[in-house]
């Protein structure tokens, strides 16, 4: 197959992939879009097999493809929706590993490479290795096999700086001395990359995981694109570039949604260990502000001794409400309460109430995770609203039901300076007429900041304990 023919095929397949992504912009055509992308990928693999001289490595290639396919089928069927973040993290890591291997073998087996090819191969090696170790740490953290709290080693900054310096020096050195143990240097480069990825991922706290996963998604694409440059494979470069930009875009969206700076997440900065800022000095301020706003809404302006609502108020609250917003959080998923949420939503609709779901951009553990968890129990997507589309409606909402969400409704985000969530836009649940919070306990959420909504207000009813049990109480009274 001549290069020109391959260029044309590559262009067509790249357009196919882009068309698949375009179809992803509408939920109705999205499944078709994914299949278009998958078909293009299959075609790309077949074309590559056809244009590769398979005399020597055929057995190994078949072996690799077969083992990989079998494992994938198993993994695809086994994975639960709540585990999707760690699954994506793991897959990211494997992509990075594959790019690293492609890079080191490029240097080892392809003769007479020029400086461009050697430089890009070395870079792909490094980016792939960083993606691999960073993603594995992220996946293990999300899976609960590693501590979720940020781990900061003594001299962490220095170690990170040193490992990245080694990476940079080797990336320059490998093309400068093409024949002097390139493979050995490349292996060393891989190790430095692995160390850097590990150092960067262990210091990221649980709340920043959605951003980290998005960023690693981007680097896995970039690694593939750079490996493609080393091999002169235009299809790899094009598709890798698309993935790289998508990951970057999602990272930006996540950073905006949490009002975090990427640099601060990667290199520490404001990302101090979560338990330190307990929001103690800040708690009274938001509380005062909340009660102040309550006086406007509530008939009962008694700040000093508000009659706290109890479970006996549930029937009245649930019957009186016409407009209801449900705010689901990761706690709902942990308790596997999605089915009950669906029942509650159906019950509300049957009794003629308007029911909507408010989805915070970082609800769950990765971008869009909550939507998937709700879709799994057949909650129609037209009931799911993004934060910006629904936030203005909270003051006119009779009842907000928070289920296992904490940080995303925590008013301390507006006031508690120096805490990990300070400045993060939140769902204004506190502005609703009445609020039922079904959380496991009143401990701070993932970000480790106390929530002033728990501090006893006349319009806030706390249902503590397992979300399933709390939802049963709601269902019994709705």
């Amino acid at each position: 197959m001549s290069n020109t023919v391959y260029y044309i095929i590559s262009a067509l397949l790249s357009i196919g992939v882009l068309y698949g992504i375009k179809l992803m912009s509408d939920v109705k055509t999205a499944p078709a879009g994914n299949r278009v992308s998958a078909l293009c990928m299959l075609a790309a693999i077949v074309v590559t097999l056809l244009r590769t001289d398979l005399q020597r490595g055929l057995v190994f290639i078949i072996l690799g493809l077969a083992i990989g396919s079998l494992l994938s089928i198993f993994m695809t069927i086994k994975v639960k929706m709540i585990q999707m973040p760690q699954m994506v993290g793991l897959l990211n890591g494997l992509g990075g590993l594959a790019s690293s291997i492609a890079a080191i073998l490029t240097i080892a087996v392809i003769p007479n490479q020029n400086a461009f090819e050697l430089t890009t191969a070395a870079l792909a090696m490094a980016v792939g290795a960083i993606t691999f170790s960073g993603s594995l740490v992220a996946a293990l953290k999300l899976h609960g096999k590693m501590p979720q709290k940020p781990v900061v080693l003594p001299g962490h900054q220095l170690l990170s700086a040193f490992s990245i310096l080694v990476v940079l020096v080797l990336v320059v050195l490998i093309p400068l001395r093409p024949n002097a143990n390139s493979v050995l240097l490349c292996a060393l480069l891989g190790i430095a990359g692995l160390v850097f990825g590990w150092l960067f991922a262990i210091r990221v706290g649980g709340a920043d995981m959605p951003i980290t996963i998005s960023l690693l998604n981007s680097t896995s694409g970039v690694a593939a694109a750079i490996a493609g440059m080393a091999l002169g494979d235009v299809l790899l470069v094009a598709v890798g570039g698309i993935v790289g930009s998508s990951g970057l875009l999602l990272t930006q969206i996540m950073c905006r949604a949490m009002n975090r700076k990427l640099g601060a997440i990667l290199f520490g900065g404001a990302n101090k260990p979560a338990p330190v800022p307990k929001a103690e000095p800040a708690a009274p301020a938001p509380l005062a502000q909340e009660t102040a706003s309550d006086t406007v809404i509530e008939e009962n302006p008694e700040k000093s001794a508000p009659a706290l609502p109890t479970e006996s108020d549930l029937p009245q609250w649930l019957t009186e409400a016409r407009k209801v917003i449900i705010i689901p959080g990761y706690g709902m998923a942990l308790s596997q309460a999605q089915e009950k949420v669906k029942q509650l939503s159906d019950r509300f609709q049957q009794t003629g109430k308007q029911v909507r779901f408010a989805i915070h951009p970082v609800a769950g553990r990765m971008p869009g995770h909550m939507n998937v968890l709700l879709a799994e129990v057949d909650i129609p997507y037209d009931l799911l609203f993004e934060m910006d589309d629904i936030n203005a409606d909270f003051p006119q909402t009779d009842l907000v039901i928070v289920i296992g969400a904490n940080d995303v409704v925590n008013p301390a985000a507006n006031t508690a300076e120096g805490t990990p969530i300070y400045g993060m836009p939140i769902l204004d649940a506190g502005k609703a007429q009445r609020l039922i919070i079904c959380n496991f306990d009143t401990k701070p959420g993932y970000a480790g900041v106390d929530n002033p909504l728990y501090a006893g207000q006349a319009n806030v009813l706390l249902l503590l304990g397992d979300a399933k049990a709390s939802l049963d109480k709601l269902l019994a009274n709705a």
Partner: protein
Amino acid sequence: MSREIILILVFIVATLLGYKLINAVPSLLHTPLMSGMNALSGITLLGVIAVTAAADTLLGQLLGVLGLVAAVINVVSGFGVTDRMLRMFKGGKAHEEAGQ
């Protein structure tokens, strides 16, 4: 035009086009979008195939097998879970029909 420049240009164009298209994907679908993109990053499989075929030592070939396994899992599982997720999304009307 040299091959290097073509490759870099392709990278830039693909990045910009991808950015523009992905910006149009609603946040409702961000998780499947991400796992789908993830699957695409397994395109590196093409590179692994090429270098495994060229490898002339057993060590190189075994390393190639490892890379192939990793990349195939990335591709196949990535598209697989994306499909699983996307099929779950149902709209109001479709939902009523499906659930009677």
